[in-house]
């Protein structure tokens, strides 16, 4: 599903040029659950942004679903993104002025789904995330775990092929964190590809494969024992 080859990304200030990604290559197959780990500043987030089509690489190739997307303009990227990729963030990133229902509905609005269908799909996903009873609440009225469930609901409402999760449990206590990880596992079992950036070895164990990075490069790639057959 995803093939990146010699991916490069630089950040340049007036005096220093920092290499964020240094000729990084790997593949992710459809249906995989991949964890990306590494210390702060190793380039994890940059990678996630490029994979999520939020940012453009400075070199190398990025093939998404058989299409070379490196060099796409913003409009094309936004288009591809809204139909194919869902995001889950550490800090939830819900819009405070919108209710739970409205937050989840938003991606459907941007992809042009009709109101009646939107309601059906949002209700279905809220039901699935067990947050239906909170549909009229605003984000600040929810606990962290509930907010992240809403965020996950929003990420999946469009039935994306790929979910990118950036430290999804970072702001949660362990029981809420486990709940979210269980949710992601369920989604993965239902066929969604997941790439997750995390600091937590505990969370990484939920994945099939761990990619460890340092200074913009892949250092190791270990497939967890029970998934070796995949």
């Amino acid at each position: 599903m995803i093939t990146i080859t010699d991916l490069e990304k630089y950040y340049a200030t007036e005096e220093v040029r920092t290499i964020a990604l240094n000729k990084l290559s790997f593949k992710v197959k459809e249906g995989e659950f991949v964890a990306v780990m590494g210390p702060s500043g190793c380039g994890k987030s940059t990678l996630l942004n490029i994979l999520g089509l939020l940012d453009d690489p400075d070199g190398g190739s990025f093939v998404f679903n058989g299409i070379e997307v490196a060099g796409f303009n913003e409009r094309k990227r936004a288009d591809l993104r809204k139909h194919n990729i869902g995001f889950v963030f550490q800090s939830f990133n819900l819009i405070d002025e919108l209710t739970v229902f409205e937050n989840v509905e938003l991606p459907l609005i941007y992809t042009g789904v009709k109101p009646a269908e939107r309601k059906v799909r949002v209700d279905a996903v809220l039901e699935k995330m067990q947050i239906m009873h909170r549909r009229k609440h605003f984000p600040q009225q929810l606990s962290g775990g509930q907010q992240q469930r809403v965020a996950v609901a929003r990420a999946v409402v469009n039935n994306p092929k790929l979910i990118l999760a950036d430290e999804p449990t970072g702001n949660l206590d362990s029981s809420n964190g486990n709940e979210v990880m269980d949710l992601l596992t369920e989604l993965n079992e239902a066929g969604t590809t997941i790439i997750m950036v995390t600091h937590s070895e505990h969370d990484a164990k939920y994945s099939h494969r761990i990619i460890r990075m340092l200074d913009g490069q892949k250092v190791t790639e270990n497939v967890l024992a029970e998934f070796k057959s995949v």
Partner: protein
Amino acid sequence: MIKNYFKIAIRNLWRHRGYSVLNIGGLAIGMTAGFLVLLYVGFEMSYDSFHSKADRLYRLSTDIKTPSDKYETPVVDWNILSELESEFPEIEMSTLVMGTDIDVKVGNENYTENRSLAAGAALFQMFDFKLLEGHSKTALSAPLSIVLDKTTAAKYFGDGNAMGKTLKIMDGKYSVTVTGVMDDMPNNSMVKGNIILSISTYTEVIDPTLKDSWANFENLGFVLLNPETDANVLEAKFKPYVEKIHGEQMKSSNMQLAYFLEPIQDIYLYSDRGSTPQITNIYIFSIVGLFILLIAAINFINLTTARSVERAKEVGIRKVIGAQKGQLAFQFLGESLIICLFAFLIAVGLSMLALPYFNELAGKVVATSIFAKPLYILSLLAISVFIAIVAGAYPALVLSSFKAVKVLKGKFSRSSKGILLRKGLVVLQFSISVILIIGTFVIYSQTYFMQHQDLGFSKEQLLILPTNNQNGQEEMQKALASNPDILSMSTSSSVPGGGGEWQTALSVLENNMGQDQSLTLNRFNIDENYIPQFDIKLLAGRNFSKQFASDSTEAMILNEKAIKLLGFADPADAIGKSFEQWDKKGTVIGVIKDFHIQSLQEEIMPLSMVMGSGDNKLLNLKVSTQNLGKTLGFIKKYWQEYFPNKSFDYFFMDAFFNQQYKSEERFASLFLNFALLAIFISCLGLLGLASYSTLQRRREIGIRKILGSSAFGIVHLLSADFLKLVAIAILIASPIAWYGMHSWLQDFAYRIDIPWWIFLVAGILAIGIALVTISFQAIKAAIANPVKSLRTE
């Protein structure tokens, strides 16, 4: 999607209620002010435009050139209109219009109608004054006919039965018949009165010699031209014709007359014949209105862009989810539109509430309802939409181009461009405010100056009775003399400020070279008590005296201005010089110090005083301030006894004279109100910006405090930035204000020098107001617990 935008907009407004109140409130107040100015300007521009034949109506006016002076008058003499009309077929119709006051007796009730007119039969055919009863062609044709407006008809006769009734006018001397009832004349009409007497009453009944008179300038003259006539071409034909028929008379009287046509719609705005053209005031108010609207719009832009940073996260999320740049821009524009329409609705409400006060402030009924002219409301709506687009464009463009990654990662930094823009706009706002503050100071100083300047005569305690010098006056004077609270009495034709009858007379006087010099002089008929009573200083010679019988025919007193024109440096040198004026011929017996007979807006004119009798229609009483009510009652009693056909009428000299400054006072108070509004709205904006920037720097403030900064240091930190802006604004505003007010003052013959301290005071005021506004926020931030502010980050 629109519903989603709408929802988020409303929730945003609600969540940040404080900002919303500042934002929408400021905008609404600004729009209200702008709207009222629009109504005012619209009203002023509409003068005399409601006549269906307005494009063919002209006022005929006369330039009078004497050997010494040239007068550009708005008036014509009694016969020129009919002469021109019969000679030039281009003139379809014409009428004289005389403004006068007429006393009216209905049954046993006496009324004095100060706004009376006399006009010719063509009036109702030329102008669109609506006649409710009577025939437009004939209502004013016969002598002793009178047309009343609806209000006056109701006042005299109750509703609906005035037609054909008889009234007594002019001390009961004439009986006139009501031949028409008209609608009350519109407020935006130059020709305006409550009652209209047929002008043939004057030429046929009151004074038949008027028909043969020449160069007796009393009336306005209006002509209706044929549709194809070019007024300029016609005007050019007047000169040779007038030369032909009046050449001899002009030569013998040393007076050259020239006639001009002024389009009726331009008179109020542009003509300086007999009135001040209003166009300057209209410009000033338009600019002030635009200023206020601009200030309000700037507030809106500033608050919206400043707050836009808070929306960055939302933008990031929406982008991640798949929003296109255009969709986001559209969302923010839409939001701005919602706010502006909100403000528009509030402005409409505020305008409705404010209109009666505004009418009062303006001194005229500018509009009876804000919906009277739908076009204005639509203009306001258009302005709101325009502000929405301008104010929404910046955040729409900036926000929609945020990089989602950066925003969500918190790497987003406030763009320095946006801050610079806001600072620039704050400078602009405060510049405007400071200009208005300085303007207000100057206008008030000038008004104060005019009202408190030594006029050269004493206007206090003077009670003026327009007795018209009727039979019985002498007896009444004798009776009044018995009252000790009446300190002195005099009679005259005129008093300063335009009271009574004002005459100008072409006179021939001996100058310092011993030659006869022609000079046009103002002429007051007075008696021997007038000069001491008005406290006018005698510089040389003597006052009139009953002891010299010849004083009433052969003596004249001149003011300084007149003897300067004759070339005398020392007043004493003018004494004994010869004069000729109308029926009088004699010598100058006295020279008085110049005193202001007109408002200080006008230059002092050369003045002659002669002893009169029949022309002295005013009885002037100096009264003690004690027992004033009792004294008035005493006078009234004798008035009713000696003048049973005349309603009791009087005025106080000081109030009467100051009435001339009414328009300046009004101007000043309108200006003051608008300046206050401008400052208020600017402060609203500053308050919003200050609280916002305080919020933004909360972390910085926390760190500084932990590192040991005092509360004062924090206040200083937060205020200094804004105060710098205000200081720049003062520097920009001062020269502009100086220039503007300097030009404004040029219209006044006697004016103040703009004192330097006005700029200082305005500056201190602006800084003070700004400081109070900012420190409110700054102090709050400075005394807050730093730990708390750091934790919330």
